């Protein structure tokens, strides 16, 4: 069983990620039994049957929109966002939209090219689970969550900017 980071700990994980093969149709593909993350297209096409299952989550590609899951954020236990490469930063804004705009409170998981040096930022925008790349040490990746102990600006993890949170000195007080 593969391991992921969830809520700052390394845990075993038995969710499988369903990907459509080339030419495979979202309408007809068979969603296997057991915990399965399905592509957005499959979810939208087969929602009437999948919605009754408690072991279905949805994954979004980086060019898909959080708004597509507007109706579902209250009930889905898990939404994942795929990073086709770690340099594709759209997933950060998708996470923002899911958490802040749509109020999603379930597990938000980063999948794909997920590496240690991006985890701090990912956690800040609302990801709480990370399926880090399996060819890299997950123990090492865990350290990426604690690179910084203070931040200036607001994000999902910190709703108040530093300047409202603490008393910072002015020029006279610093001197």
């Amino acid at each position: 069983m593969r391991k992921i980071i969830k809520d700052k700990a390394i845990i075993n994980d038995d969710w499988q990620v369903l990907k459509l093969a080339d030419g495979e149709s979202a309408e007809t593909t068979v969603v296997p039994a057991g915990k399965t993350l399905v592509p957005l297209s499959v979810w939208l096409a087969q929602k009437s049957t999948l919605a009754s299952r408690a072991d279905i989550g949805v994954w979004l590609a980086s060019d898909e929109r959080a708004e597509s899951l507007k109706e579902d954020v209250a009930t889905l236990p898990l939404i994942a966002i795929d990073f086709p490469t770690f340099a594709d930063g759209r997933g950060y804004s998708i996470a923002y939209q899911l958490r802040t705009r749509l109020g999603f409170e379930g597990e938000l998981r980063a999948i794909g090219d997920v590496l240690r040096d991006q985890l701090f930022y990912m956690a800040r925008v609302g990801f709480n689970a990370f399926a880090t790349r399996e060819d890299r040490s997950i123990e090492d990746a865990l350290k990426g969550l604690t690179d910084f102990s203070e931040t200036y600006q607001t994000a999902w993890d910190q709703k108040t900017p530093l300047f409202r949170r603490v008393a910072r000195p002015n020029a006279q007080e610093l001197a």
Partner: protein
Amino acid sequence: MYRYDTYDHQIVQERVAQFRDQVRRRLSDELTEDEFRPLRLQNGLYMQRHAYMLRVAIPYGLLSTKQLRMLAHIARKYDRDYGHFTTRQNIQYNWINLEETPDILADLASVEMHAIQTSGNCIRNITSDQFAGVAADELLDPRPFAEILRQWSTFHPEFAYLPRKFKIAINAAAEDRAVVKAHDIGLNLVKNEQGETGFQVLVGGGLGRTPIIGSVIREFLPWQHLLSYIEAIMRVYNEYGRRDNKYKARIKILVKALGVEEFTRQVEHEWRDLQDSPSTITVDELNRVASYFEPPVYEHLPDADVLLAEQRHENKAFSGWMSRNVRPHKKQGYAIVTLSLKKTGIPPGDATSAQMDVLADMADRYSFGELRVTHEQNLVLADVKQTDLLAIYTEAKAHGLATPNIGLLTDMICCPGGDFCSLANAKSIPIAGAIAERFDNLDFQHDIGEIELNISGCINACGHHHVGNIGILGVDKDGSEWYQVSIGGRQGNESAIGKIIGPSFAAEQMPEVIARLLEVYVRDRHEDERFIDAVDRLGIEPFKAHVYATPIGGQSLEAGEEAHA
């Protein structure tokens, strides 16, 4: 100027530790070069032709003497005894070893400096007017807002992997000295009819492959909303900016594709939920940050007109320097001095460690211990007594820092070009050198008067060639270096993109090309008409006709090429 509190220190020190570990993992191959590249870029580290280049942030161009001495120390200890001041008010070192970069960053952190986000597809150093706080035509000091933006953009988690780099500039003066129209976001500090302070917001300006002047998307944004409004712009860009082609990934391409109206609608829609969020800047916070930018304690001095007139009468060279390099100060008895880093024979913007130390000493003695870096790649002593000007001139001259050419032909903007940069198609420093040599005569330069000559070694336009009155762009044709010439570009309030005059030239032809352009100007100008105004009046045709009238020979350019090799 702004000073770090414990929070700033902690964040920057944690960055140093993070990068030290990233370098360790790269050296032990735990990180591949592809994985490491964006990490090092976000610490200003480029791999260039011969070595790594490190770009250090000088936020909005403001430097203390302690910081400048550290920059000199870094040049001496880790580089080849010089640094290069850039068009984005930063400094670059060209001969850096990867292994030493964590120590350099630690040295920088000790004087409240860093290289955070000086490269990479993220929000870059916030730039502003080099005369902020001392300019007579200023509405309000823009630096507190620049500092608030610096902090907000530092490690912004959502906007660290944008489609492309992102540059923000702020201007608060009647004359735009921050080139706001050529930035991804340009901010003009303005007052509305009720007398309230806010920003005119421009988006989608930029040079590079597709030069575009920014469009106004909001005429008045109350200053309190600066951060949330920029957040809205950034989010629309992060979600919809193109990622399939890096040459079409800047926000200007998105604004063009959507149209300004639709882009604005999307930003305003995004902003609705953010308006009045906790990111809204408070009066307390603005006042706190502004307290660091209080003017120094000036003496009450009379104007030194009479003394200066005498000194100028006795010393013609000093007088020439006064006319070009000294500007009026808003405080009586004081002046603003620009120290030229454009001495003929030296690559534009370069300063040696020894010069940096001299500059720091001068700033301590004459200008309250602070300096500014300009986007024209010169340094400024912003608060000097008029009675000290002659002494400053004399000292600066002794160290090659008093070339009286500010705004003249040899005050060129020039990128590092093919001598250093791996992106460049062509060398730019030798071209600048050859032109400077040909027109070194100061009387001739004064006769030509104000002119901006900008040189870029490639289409990325670090040398701002599009907005030069004369712009020179290095291009590659079948593996050899050629130069395309445009005229009529300008920066500032009347920003315009230059027009290409025709087929490109070989390096050795360039001084003669410039000479012919100037011949047309001298022949056809009206009295007191600047080069750029003559181009506007005449159009490019007469210039084109004269430049291409007869074949241009030329000797091969040797001088300057090995200046720092």
